[in-house]
């Protein structure tokens, strides 16, 4: 192999390695872009500073709708206690979901929130949420799960309705059979 070929080979291999790395770099990059733009509907967590910044306009009302689903792997029933509520941007509210384990085993679940429309998701912040931690339900146990949130007062005009949607996923190690146990119950809720 002559020197030039060797050089070309090295350069090409460098490109290959760099692009392999780039593929993986897209993962954090995507998260950053989503944080900035709200692209994937992920919601924020409220902190003191955000709460202090709120200017409440008592005349403004937006509707928050609630939606809850379980992933097909999770033998739970899960639904919002109330399907929607009127809120004033900048004020704090609490809503509740109700979850029940219909399997004959302990199951751990993790809820993942998402807000539609995407543009609104960066203005939706939670101070407390059952989605911050994993939830364990004993066989047959039913539990009320609260979420405390504000819709920030700088929510752009023109957004009147937001939908907060949770999907609950199974986080315990179960066999495929155990996971589908009680899946017929899902239809009833």
């Amino acid at each position, binding site marked *: 192999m002559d020197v030039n070929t060797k050089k070309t080979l090295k350069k090409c291999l460098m490109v290959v*390695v760099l692009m392999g790395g780039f593929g993986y770099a897209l993962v954090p990059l995507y998260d950053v872009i989503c944080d900035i733009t709200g*692209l994937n509907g992920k919601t924020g967590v409220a902190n003191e500073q955000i709460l202090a910044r709120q200017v409440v306009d008592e005349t403004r009302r937006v509707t928050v709708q609630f939606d809850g689903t379980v992933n097909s792997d999770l033998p739970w029933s899960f639904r919002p206690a109330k399907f929607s509520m009127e809120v004033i941007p900048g004020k704090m509210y609490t809503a509740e979901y109700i979850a029940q384990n219909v399997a004959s085993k302990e199951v751990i679940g993790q809820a993942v929130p998402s807000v539609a429309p995407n543009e609104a998701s960066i203005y939706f912040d939670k101070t407390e949420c059952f989605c911050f931690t994993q939830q364990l339900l004993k066989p047959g146990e039913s539990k009320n799960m609260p979420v405390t949130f504000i819709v920030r007062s700088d929510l752009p005009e023109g957004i009147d309705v937001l939908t907060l949607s949770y999907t609950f*996923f199974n*986080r315990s190690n179960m066999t495929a059979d155990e996971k589908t146990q009680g899946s017929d119950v899902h239809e009833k809720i």
Partner: protein
Amino acid sequence: MGHDSHDHKPKGFVNRWLMTTNHKDIGTLYLVFAFAMFITGGAMAMIIRLELFQPGLQFVEPDFFNQMTTMHALIMVFGAVMPAFVGLANWMIPMMIGAPDMALPRMNNWSFWILPFAFALLGSTLFMDGGAPAGGWTMYPPLVLQGGKNVAYLVFAVHLMGISSIMGAINVIATIMNMRAPNVGYLNMPLFVWTWLITAFLLIAVMPVLAGAVTMLLTDRYFGTSFFNAAGGGDPVLFQHIFWFFGHPEVYIMILPSFGVVSEIIPTFARKPLFGYVSMVYATAGIAFLSFIVWAHHMFSVGMPLGGELYFMYATMMIAVPTGVKIFNWVATMWKGAMTFETPMLFSLAFVVLFTIGGFSGVMMALAPVDLQYHDTYFIVAHFHYVLVPGAIFAIIAAAYYWLPKWSGHMYSERLGKIHFWWSTISVNVLFFPQHFLGLAGMPRRIPDYSTQFAEFNMMSSIGGFAFGLAQVFFIYIVVKTVRGGKKAEANAWGDAKGLEWTVPSPAPHHTFDEFGPVDLKKMAHGEVH
């Protein structure tokens, strides 16, 4: 393998084919392999069209149907089209630039022999519990991860295919950059060589990204990572971004070498130099660059901010500009030329016309608002089959007819070639044109059953499909017959074709351009250009 005598080919299967480092033999291996995969993938397409011949479920289970669509696409993309072009590159690039062989002959052997293993892995999933991958060639999670035992096989097969194409691409780059005869400048190179150089850069840039994406699928499935798993904080849409960052350049990987082939053939049979050589080079580079920044046109319906939809829409529409430059240059090359219509020319002409139809439906789908209607319907199936079948595949067939005399030393039968051409061209349109209407009327893709209002167009499409499939079996017959015997081909099989490959005897001796030295630039198609 140091045999330096002239036409002394190694004896025995193992020495001649398994251990070969000769670019022509490896080219042949690639082409034969690609053809075998083309027939395999084609057989799967026949099963698909058989099931879709009538509404209702007749022949196969829905899950098997989905395995067929997935495997058909994977085999055609990675097993037929890409290896066929690597085969053409192996055969032609060294001869076109006055090089004795590829720059890295041993790696060349490896890059080919990996492929049969890759496809054995992939094919073995058909016989497993739970069957082959059925989530589509795009491998979107979470669907693809629910596929049973095949996930690991799918991922490793894709890894092997990726390694093979990366090695092939590096070889092409190293050959073109370092092995040109001393007086051959970049702007003397034939367009086939240029388009392949650019394709090779696309390959080394995006195949590693695909490898990364499927590795993430693998670890999500077996090692508890959550790249695409929402429960663990991941996002399935992320996969689509990574996949299409690979996927859109990939579709250009499959078409740029076709542009090169057609740019060689049309001047020969129009008996005029290629119009706008330099603009062709720039247009190819332009298309390659744009292909990196338009990927999300595959994701208009996934939920993007308005700005994103607009950006990807305009960027995609821009691709039509350099593509248009190419089409006009081909037409201008033929303008007032002394044209004759031998089979390679016919396939090239059909390429220009039918590829353009695919380009038009592409521009339609580039419009984000209307793509919401077209997305995941048969309209897009019609689009990509127009650019890939009478596009890429026709170019490969044209190349085979054009260079077969050089490879085999025999002329094919022009009469049989013309029959093959008309048979293919008519049937390919009967096959794919009605799918535009099906898509516009709302028939979804990747579905084994459909409602009765789609029945007529589906039946038409299936009939076209069977006819097209049969035509390619006929093509095997033509090729085998030509290799076995026939009219002896001259060194310059087409009389006055330009290009260094036509200065060596037909069939091309095992070793060509063995002495490194200047070549006669006047014999090159673009010898005068600098």
